[in-house]
């Protein structure tokens, strides 16, 4: 009755507490320098090896980046994306063990205008980052977020992507690359010095008006994320890059997964948090840092002096409950402190998900903002239709009430007429069968569930950038047209762009 330990090994064998003065668990020679997880102490050398190997392994396992391909690294200046930059540098260096074989370029999106930084502050940040970028020898672009206002509408279209990778395609590409003098590919690249684009004050003002029109920080952040992504994709397209690398860490992705769930983006989760994101078709977003925790990255950056530059974001210095994203972040970090497996458990969920239901992804409509397949088909019994019903029932039945989506009459009508037949007619608005007049469907009908929530929080839809509004006009006209000729179409074919 005197055992305290209830483990399998004998009662006297206590698990040793991790302590800093321990030896490295890998080489068992050098003294440990960092403890990554409870019990995992590494020396400096082994930690570096482990960290570098992880990056290669992530790229090697997924076989998505072809040799000789142009890859754009999206660097925000934060620790994670700067660490990614240093890993690419490391992997391309001559003495690298397993050399990376793609052609990198860097892009920095300057969001200073969106968060209300002064011109001088913005310049200072850009200067600091340019020094970091110059040191890598890679070509780089500094793009102010204001440029998003001048994007073409094609950004929000999913371009016909590269054909499905055939089984042997990757291997063939590697062989081809090796035959055609692959060694000099990277070094031959010139570092082009593009002068940072001057930002017009008027542009900054319209950007601020756009973000300011969001009544909640939640919506403002969502909007900013969307705009940033559009600009990234556009920059990659126009500069001839086919992949964009994002620096999301495991911790970041766990927060993103949980906040995406809370924002109603369940259908888009795989796109938002997976290793690769092919929603734009020709440009594929890749997240090679998704195996590293924020802690590992911080240790590595400090030990090996990886430079990073602090840039304030929308949520900097805000309270926990200022937005859903911010709330989720503090929830996950606090839980992680008490239950150290929180982040990795949430993150592993993201690996088990796939993008949208297959039927919708085939060629159906995509959201005007996030370019994911729409998830707003009001099915029989769904949270979406239940919300619509609640809203209808709480309002006076006025004709101009907006309906987020063209609603199908409840398919349970046979049940409806059999069981509650008289009730349907008597109770005003009790049943949702009242046929809607053919008024022009609003912008919301072009959005996915979550983006509808974002737009709902805007004071006006008119402030959206021109490229979004004009594409919306085009789509609405097109669907109206389709409605008119509907009777003559033999099959309900998907609308071809």
């Amino acid at each position, binding site marked *: 009755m005197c055992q305290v330990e209830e483990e399998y090994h004998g009662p006297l064998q206590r698990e040793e507490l991790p302590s800093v003065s321990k030896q490295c668990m890998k080489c068992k020679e050098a003294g440990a320098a960092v403890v990554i997880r409870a019990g995992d102490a590494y020396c400096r050398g082994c930690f570096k090896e482990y960290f570098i190997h992880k990056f290669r392994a992530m790229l090697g396992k997924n076989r998505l980046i072809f040799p000789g391909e142009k890859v754009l690294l999206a660097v925000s200046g934060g620790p994670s994306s700067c660490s990614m930059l240093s890993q690419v540098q490391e992997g391309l260096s001559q003495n690298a063990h397993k050399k990376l074989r793609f052609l990198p370029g860097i892009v920095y999106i300057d969001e200073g205008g969106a968060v209300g930084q002064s011109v001088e502050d913005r310049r200072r940040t850009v200067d600091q980052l340019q020094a970091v970028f110059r040191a890598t020898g890679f070509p780089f672009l500094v793009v102010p977020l204001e440029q998003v206002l001048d994007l073409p509408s094609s950004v929000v279209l999913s371009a016909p992507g590269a054909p499905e990778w055939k089984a042997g395609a990757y291997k063939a590409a590697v062989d081809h690359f090796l035959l055609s003098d692959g060694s000099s590919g990277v070094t031959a690249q010139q570092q082009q010095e593009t002068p940072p684009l001057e930002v017009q004050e008027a542009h900054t003002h319209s950007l601020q008006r756009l973000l300011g029109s969001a009544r909640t920080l939640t919506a403002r952040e969502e909007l900013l994320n969307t705009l940033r992504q559009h600009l990234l994709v556009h920059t990659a397209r126009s500069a001839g890059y086919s992949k964009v690398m994002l620096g999301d860490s495991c911790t970041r992705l766990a927060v993103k997964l949980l906040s995406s769930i*809370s924002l109603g983006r369940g*259908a888009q989760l795989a796109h938002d948090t997976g290793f690769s994101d092919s929603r734009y078709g020709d440009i594929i977003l890749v997240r090679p840092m998704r195996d590293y925790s924020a802690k590992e990255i911080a240790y590595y950056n400090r030990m090996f002096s990886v430079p990073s530059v602090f840039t304030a974001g929308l949520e900097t210095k805000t309270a926990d409950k200022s937005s*859903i994203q911010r*709330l989720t972040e503090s929830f996950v970090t606090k839980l992680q402190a008490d239950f150290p497996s929180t982040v990795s458990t949430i993150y592993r969920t993201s690996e088990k998900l796939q*993008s949208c239901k297959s039927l919708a992804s085939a060629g159906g409509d995509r959201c005007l903002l996030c370019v994911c397949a729409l998830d707003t088909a009001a099915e029989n*019994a769904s949270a979406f239709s239940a919300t619509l019903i609640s809203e209808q029932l709480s309002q006076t039945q006025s004709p101009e009430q907006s309906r987020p989506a063209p609603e199908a009459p409840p398919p349970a009508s046979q049940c409806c007429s059999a069981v509650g037949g008289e009730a349907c007619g008597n109770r005003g608005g009790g049943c949702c069968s009242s046929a809607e007049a053919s008024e022009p469907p609003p912008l919301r009908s072009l959005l996915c*569930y979550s983006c509808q929530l974002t737009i709902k929080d805007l004071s006006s839809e008119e402030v959206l950038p021109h490229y979004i509004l004009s594409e919306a006009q085009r789509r609405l006209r097109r669907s109206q047209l389709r409605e008119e000729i509907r009777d003559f179409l033999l099959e309900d074919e998907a609308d071809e762009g």
Partner: protein
Amino acid sequence: MPVLCSSCDDKRAVLKRPKTGHSLCKACFFRAFEEEVHQTILAANLFKHGEIVGIAASGGKDSTVLAHVMKLLNERYNYGLELMLLSVDEGISGYRDDSLETVKRNQQQYELPLKIVSYEELYGWTMDAIVKQVGLKNNCTFCGVFRRQALDRGALMLRVDKICTGHNADDVAETVLMNILRGDIARLRRCTAISTSSEGEGVVPRCKPLKYAYEKEIVLYAYFKKLDYFSTECIYSPNAYRGHARTFLKDLESVRPSSIMDIIHSGENLSVREGVKMPVQGTCNRCGYISSQTLCKSCVLLEGLNRGLPKLGIGKHHRLHDKILTQQPLTEKEERKLKSVNF
């Protein structure tokens, strides 16, 4: 100036709907709440004419409102259902005995037949006795697993076709969050389903007519209808980890009230990658209940209690199942691990 009801534009509004933010008068709120449950029942085709439906009644607000609304809608819309109340007595003195009194009053008020099944008669253990052996940690596991089976057994005794439970939107959203936090992809996939498909013999299909009703609105409904319900937390400490998820959900709701529905929407639209290993449904080799293992959870838990090894069913000890089935004794080492810890 008093705010007018946004629905009838006539009477004075008495409440702000937590779900939509609209101000409504009492009558319009009742109508909207009932109508929404009705729409859910219709849209999901939950019941067929002539079915016998057991309402899982605990005496709490959710099940009291459920019983009230089910009876009302059954009469108003002529569902043609035969309703009964089904209660489980876990044997928690000072808690369940009081709430069962409420259920008995409800039985009188709604004139519905009531069946009470107790843990003691089904398993030979009351929760009080279980807690005495297990302590206050993991006791909710026993209670939860046993209740699920107890409801099914009660339903079989009553010969009902379906059971409906009082799970509300908050419960469903909370479960989505919990399953993500625990990495339970199989449960994550099915936890948003409004009804369980007929899973096999010995299992009665269940559904959640209040799945899209906000907890706050259920309380408002019960309050304005002056329904008789029991509101006390269980005396055995609530599950700590779930508490985190619950607090998080409440915080989310305060930032954006639609969050609860948004999470359910997310859950309904998740799709799991092909090739992810999922547990396969089988039957328990001992009692024949559905189980993904050779023994169902409640048989393992019960075995643990009876052998004085309460931890047998906590955590994963699948490789011990064969030993339990063949009634073999466990080794000393295994026993030591599974005994409860006394400080």
